[in-house]
């Protein structure tokens, strides 16, 4: 069991693995996972948009699952493995999905892009595991057929103010198609 902070203490020291590297952090308990990544670990790729779980710009993968890092306390992730956009790929070694976003011009300002990409990677894992969505016509079906309607529904937690949605869809489809 990891150490549990004692009563009366409003800070915590704990370990968390970020992009494959074990980090020991010492933070105020109020620190969100998002603020830990950006302000304490210097990983500025993950973005703060609304800070209330409505825009998806802060999406990261925690133990492989996409979550809104703004609505999670860092301490809740003691011992977890977190992947941010920096862990997905950095130039020149970009992930195929990052390359697809460039090739498809799937952004304008780019602020939502790290969240879009982390979210899409999490989404592809969900599809691989056969997890349904609201757009899944047959809930009993073994496999998910990744139609455009499925991708749109599954990506609805990521807002793009520049409205690059058609290109985001194409970029995801490029990679999902090649993976399938």
């Amino acid at each position, binding site marked *: 069991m990891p150490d*549990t902070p004692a009563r009366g203490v409003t800070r915590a020291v704990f370990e968390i693995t970020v992009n494959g590297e074990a980090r020991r952090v010492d933070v105020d*308990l109020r620190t969100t996972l998002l603020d830990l990544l950006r302000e304490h670990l210097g990983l500025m790729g993950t973005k703060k948009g609304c800070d209330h*779980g409505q825009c998806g710009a802060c999406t990261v993968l925690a133990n492989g699952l996409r979550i809104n890092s703004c609505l999670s306390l860092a301490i*809740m992730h003691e011992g977890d493995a977190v992947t941010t956009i920096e862990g997905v790929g950095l130039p020149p070694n970009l992930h195929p999905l990052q390359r697809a976003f460039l090739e498809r011009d799937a952004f304008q300002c780019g602020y939502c892009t790290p969240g879009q990409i982390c979210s899409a990677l999490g989404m592809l894992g969900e599809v691989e595991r056969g997890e349904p969505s609201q757009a899944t016509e047959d809930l009993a079906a073994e496999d998910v057929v990744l139609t455009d309607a499925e991708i749109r529904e599954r990506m609805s937690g990521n807002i793009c103010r520049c409205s690059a949605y058609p290109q985001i869809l194409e970029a995801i489809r490029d990679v999902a198609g090649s993976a399938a």
Partner: protein
Amino acid sequence: MSPFTYERAEDATGAAKAAAATPGAKFLAGGTNLLDLMKLEIERPSHLIDVGRLPLAEIAETSDGGLRIGAVVSNTAAASDRRVRARYPVLAQALLSGASAQLRNKATVGGNLMQRTRCPYFYDPAKPCNKREPGAGCSALEGLNRSHAILGASEACIAVNPSDMAVALSALEAKVETVTPSGQARAFAIDDVHRLPGDTPEIETNLGAGELVTAVVLPPPPDWPQDYRKVRDRASYAGGLFSLARAGDRLALGAVALKPWRATLAEAARAAGASPAEAAEAELAGAKGRGGNDFKIVLAKRVVAAALEEGAGG
């Protein structure tokens, strides 16, 4: 955010005991609603008891052919479970119609039940709200109340319960299992968990101080059909303006009251031979609009009648 202390619970009874013994303590599981409210200082717990790692993350068969869903099972895991999808599709549909994938991955079944209203006045500390500050008044009565309650509301509060899941659980006649600080296991019928506002809208459930939800228990699946219909302003990632869960002969309505609204009057009318439209009229006879939400009464009648029409042959 106000400062707080934190502990990670080791067992459910210990968590309940700690919650009862610590003034200002709150349980934390997925945190998707609580942390949002803490950032706005609408929730100001002095101590958080993290129950997210309790061994309550299993979905298991019950001896009578139902399912027991542990309180910290994520909304995604519950909706993705093959048994839930095959036997309780109304529940899977309701869960999948709520929030976004990121939130469903984090939010738990127990937390879904305990989430608080999204009434915009509850969320705005600059406005009076009887839930936040008993006696302050209700801004929604004369305010923008398009999303508000048409059934079971009071002059103190016209907020609605935002859960889709709870509406499906009501139609399924689920039970909610809890543990009290003294270690006693209790079970509530889903319709007895949440309270109507009355004069005390700040008291939202019938759970006692420190009482912790440990599981949701589904009885054996009802007869078909089962389905969940949600009407809202955009196709995805939006709260409902009205929803209907159907499980065999049982109906429950969402986004109409401060609790999932089991439609017993419509069910009784149907059993007595009433037409779908008559059954819908019977349920909504007591509905009261406040101006902005008057349309919900018509909407509710139409959706209920349409659903019953479609199921009339089956």
